[in-house]
């Protein structure tokens, strides 16, 4: 039996595949992503589902609390739409960025395999969280419909762009977090603390244009405020004028990603060693 199995595996040099480096990398990333799905919260289907259910429950809980606390909203007629368009960007940023931050520290032993590189581990986690984010947004929309909320934006393409830009921002921050957290454990406090400050100042519960100019100018630098403004501009006509800067939001994400990639390349040797 063993000989039979061995015969099928073969060992001759000429039998070894000669895939291109890109093919090998995509194969490795796919394998790590599938492993991540099964190991993050347990190897059952329920464990995999938690990747989507956890942020979704957080989102629904926050919306329920805010609807109960404030039934009158500053714009529109439906509190669920107002709070939903504010909280969805926060959830789509916070969860992927946080989970990607842990990617390297949770999977560092894989670097003992010659085929696996640090970037493969981070990209695999980005893919899993990208897919999870789409599920969260889609299921959230369906739940709103199920409760009779007209959650369809006036400009669907704009809403989709806002969601994609937010996920891009989350992946960039997550990548930076992954490389810094692998070297500096205190980074977790900076990223989580920074995320909470961004959330409070993102205009989730208020309209930034209603604030004094000095405060508004200071809040303008918060990338998450642009995410919220962008998504709401797809729902409310004229919303975001004078505040929303799509280019600023995309540039901040790109610069963060560039810094993350530069650190990852320059410090790869340190990232591979357990600190």
């Amino acid at each position: 039996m063993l000989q039979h199995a061995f015969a099928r595996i073969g060992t001759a040099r000429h039998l070894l595949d000669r895939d291109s480096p890109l093919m090998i990398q995509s194969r490795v990333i796919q394998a790590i992503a599938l492993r991540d799905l099964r190991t993050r919260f347990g190897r059952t289907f329920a464990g995999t589902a938690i990747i989507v259910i956890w942020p979704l429950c957080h989102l629904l809980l926050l919306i329920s609390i805010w609807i109960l606390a404030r039934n009158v909203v500053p714009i529109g007629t439906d509190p669920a739409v107002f709070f939903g368009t504010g909280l969805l960007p926060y959830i789509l940023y916070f969860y992927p960025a946080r989970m990607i931050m842990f990617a390297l520290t949770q999977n560092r032993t894989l670097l003992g395999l010659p085929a696996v590189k640090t970037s493969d581990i981070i990209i695999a986690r980005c893919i899993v969280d990208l897919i999870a984010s789409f599920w969260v947004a889609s299921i959230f929309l369906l739940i709103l419909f199920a409760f009779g909320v007209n959650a369809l934006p006036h400009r669907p393409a704009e809403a989709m762009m806002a969601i994609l830009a937010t996920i891009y921002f989350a992946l960039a921050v997550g990548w930076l977090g992954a490389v810094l957290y692998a070297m500096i454990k205190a980074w977790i406090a900076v990223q989580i603390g920074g995320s909470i400050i961004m959330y409070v100042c993102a205009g989730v519960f208020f309209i930034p244009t209603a604030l004094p100019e000095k405060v508004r100018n200071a809040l303008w630098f918060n990338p998450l405020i642009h995410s919220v403004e962008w998504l709401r501009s797809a729902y409310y006509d004229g919303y975001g004028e004078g505040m929303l800067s799509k280019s600023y939001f995309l540039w901040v994400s790109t610069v963060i990603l560039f810094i993350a990639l530069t650190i990852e390349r320059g410090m790869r040797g340190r990232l591979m060693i357990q600190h």
Partner: protein
Amino acid sequence: MIKFDNVLKFYRIHRHRKVVLNHVSISLQPGASYGVLGVNGAGKSTFMRLIAGAELPNSGRIQRTVRLSWPIGFSGGLHHTLTGRENVKFLARVYGEDHRHILDFVEDFAEIGPYIDAPVRTYSSGMVARLAFGLSMAIRFECYLIDEVLAVGDARFQTRCRAEFNKRKQHADIIMISHDTSAIRQYCEHGIVLADGNLHYFHDVDDAIELYKRINM
């Protein structure tokens, strides 16, 4: 081929700089097996990790044009919440192998029976070692890395490990670290002695063993 080009590797330990490889250049050719010798702390395992790509040099370049194994018996690729079967599938995917063939081999070789469907965290250390060794043998490599461990388990299983490894040896190269000079002599034709941050290459492994014995006295 594995080529070290002016490789510098050092560690900082309590403000002290410990140089493992001091601007070393060497080419390990395909079709040849190398035994690496050196006293404790000389940096043999670091040299192995550099070859495997598990660590990077501080400066210089390392090029690899062969499909390298992980150090035989290395179990870091196994996830303890996954079953043996799921771990086998994961590693087969990483190396682009047909997981059914790999699984057939590992199930037969590792002799862990129904435990193949149990999470690895429930395995005894011996079962983890057998699974890891079986995986090392199941996936095809052009060059096998051995850091001391050439066989695991009880005497009977160790005999099987050596027999299986000898089959791989017929078609693949070996880079072997060991204090066991008879094992080095058995599996390798060329020798490298690592001492004071320098690699001393010997075409004849017996010359390397001779130098190692003199250093070790």
